[in-house]
């Protein structure tokens, strides 16, 4: 920034909020803090939109509110931001509701604890609860077992059918 202008300052503020919010979402270990970070990032985006309609030296877009001769700022972004703010608060409220429910079920909002508890949940319920995923514990296993189709004729050369009566030649080799 060569000289300090309002729009420059606000731009830095908006970007700062977005970046800090994004950072917070990426590093938070706690779902609630993640939500707070999201609120920050949304604020930053809102600020950026309003900034995109700001006009140096213009007045608010309300007739009879200020200097009638001065140009007005662009009102469209302001409308967009109004909408965005309300959308944001709706999403935020829904997120809070989800957090309450998650906390009630698992008793924690810490990301790692949550994952452990969900996995434990699935492990105990495996095969019992129909809509629980069977997949979850897999992350802890080193490598998956070779699936069934890959080991067809595992002896290699198709010794299948009825089990041969004597042990087969290759198993007797020295």
């Amino acid at each position, binding site marked *: 920034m060569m000289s300090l202008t309002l729009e420059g300052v606000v731009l830095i503020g908006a970007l700062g909020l*977005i970046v800090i*919010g*994004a950072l917070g*979402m990426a590093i938070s270990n706690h*779902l609630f803090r*993640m*939500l707070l970070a*999201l609120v920050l*990032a*949304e604020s*930053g*985006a*809102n600020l*950026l*939109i309003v*900034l*995109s*309609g700001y006009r140096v030296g213009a007045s608010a877009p309300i007739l009879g509110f200020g200097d009638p001769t001065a140009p007005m700022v*662009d009102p*469209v*972004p302001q409308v*967009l931001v109004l*909408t*965005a703010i309300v*959308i944001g608060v*709706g*999403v935020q409220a*829904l*997120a809070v509701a*989800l*957090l309450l*429910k*998650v906390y009630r*079920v*698992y008793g924690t909002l810490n990301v790692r604890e*949550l994952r452990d508890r*969900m996995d434990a*949940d*699935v492990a105990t*319920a495996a*095969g019992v*609860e*129909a*809509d*629980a*995923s*069977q*997949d979850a514990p*897999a992350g802890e296993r080193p490598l*998956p077992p070779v*699936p*069934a*189709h890959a080991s067809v004729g595992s002896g290699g050369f198709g010794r299948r059918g009825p089990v041969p009566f004597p042990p087969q030649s290759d198993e007797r080799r020295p």
Partner: protein
Amino acid sequence: MISDLAVPNLFVAQAGQLVLPVVLPLLAAFLMQPLARVSTALARGLGPLVLILCAWITAQLWIQLGDAPFTLAIGGFAPPLGILFYADGIALLFALAVPVFALLFWPGSESGGGAGADSRPGSDQADRDQAARRDALVLLLVAATTGLALSGDLFNLYVFYELAAVASFGLVALSGTGRAQVATFRYLMISAFGSVLALAGIAILYMQTGTLNLGQLAQLAPETLNNPIGSAAFALMLIGFGVKAELFPVNTWVPEVYAGAPARVSALLAGLVSKLAVLVIVRLLVLIFPQPEAAQMLLVLGVLGVLTGEFAAWRAKDFPRMLAFSSIGQLGIVFVAFSIGGEIGLLAGLAVALHHLIVKSALFGLAVRWNGSLEALAGAARTSPLGAALFVLFALSLVGVPPLPGFWAKLTVIVGLAERGTPLDITALMSILLVTAVEASYLFRVAIRLYQDNPDPVARHARRDLGVSALLGAVLVAATLGLRPVADVLGAGAAQLGDRAGYIETVFPSHVAGKD
């Protein structure tokens, strides 16, 4: 005043009625909960009724006005000022598909709120409230997705996109399990993060052009957006709108959500909602960002999506999750196809997208009962032979076996890639072919398992789910038989979709075109 005008205005098809398929579901959704307090039967019947009405209105409009694209300025404000609906063949097709599919996968009681892990025997009142909320959310989703298909205003698209997102959060949480809630929260965070980026993109775009109307943006794009700033705006919006479209790095919510949500909701999300999000991205790509960088981004992310999705599906242990991963892969192909651009690219993308819409919805319809682990599906063909046969049909088409539509769609993509033939395209082509083999392996592993002997197979399908899947299967077969007309229709749709000049011309009829 009303008595004179109401009859002609409401019962003769005219462009103004195009808002009704968006507005009527909203109206019904707003009134759903109070109505449920008054009469349960009324509330229960309201949703399907409204959907039928919407489909009928859209069909009427399409038949009577749909030869050429037409627009509708909402509120009667001249185009760049107000919000605009733009209806070309593809938009109307999707606008028609939305209520139809919502009707097909209208969540019934069995996938509703009561099935959760921690459900307790709630009171009747609570159950009825929950059912009303569910119906309201589906109607909201319908309104939002219809809006996505029709809207010609960038911010309006964003609003509808958010509406679709929020409504689907609620629907996913319906199953009531803890896992579903965690999945929903995760979905919400990704989606909201994406929205922040998309908003930033919109801000940049507005800063650059001073307008939100897609037509005007298309006019201004060559001089103002064909630069790094424009590409950056596209990148940001791609990430934002890509969340619902299951675009590669912002799709990590997909498996958990589809596995946790009620199967019919998954069917709607994977089938319908993702396609509308794709349509939005395609509109942006075609109209505003025709520069090659934008298409390349889409191509790279699409290829990564194809690879990650299909490979991950290979190891999935339960049915919905497998479908979810496969859906990621298929949408990756859709992105690759659209990134090719030109008429063949658009045609390929549309074909793959519509094919996936039909097939994946139907498969999720089967997952209403087959919602457990894949191992538990052994011998399922014995209890529901039609279901198993349909699975095989859909799997064949998904993999791309001639002469099913899936093959022609994939072939179009591949030919398109081969025709352009840059190293990146060839990589994409090879990736698609590679994962198709993987796809065949995991899908038919399941198919074989369905036909195994098992003394204790899973329960049979409900007649309704089976009927819906069979209907979609019949559509698939019909499309196979009538390949040529279908291809012609799609080709015409693709031509319209890719017609940038036509879009501008429709929004600003000739004499205004030079207006600044």
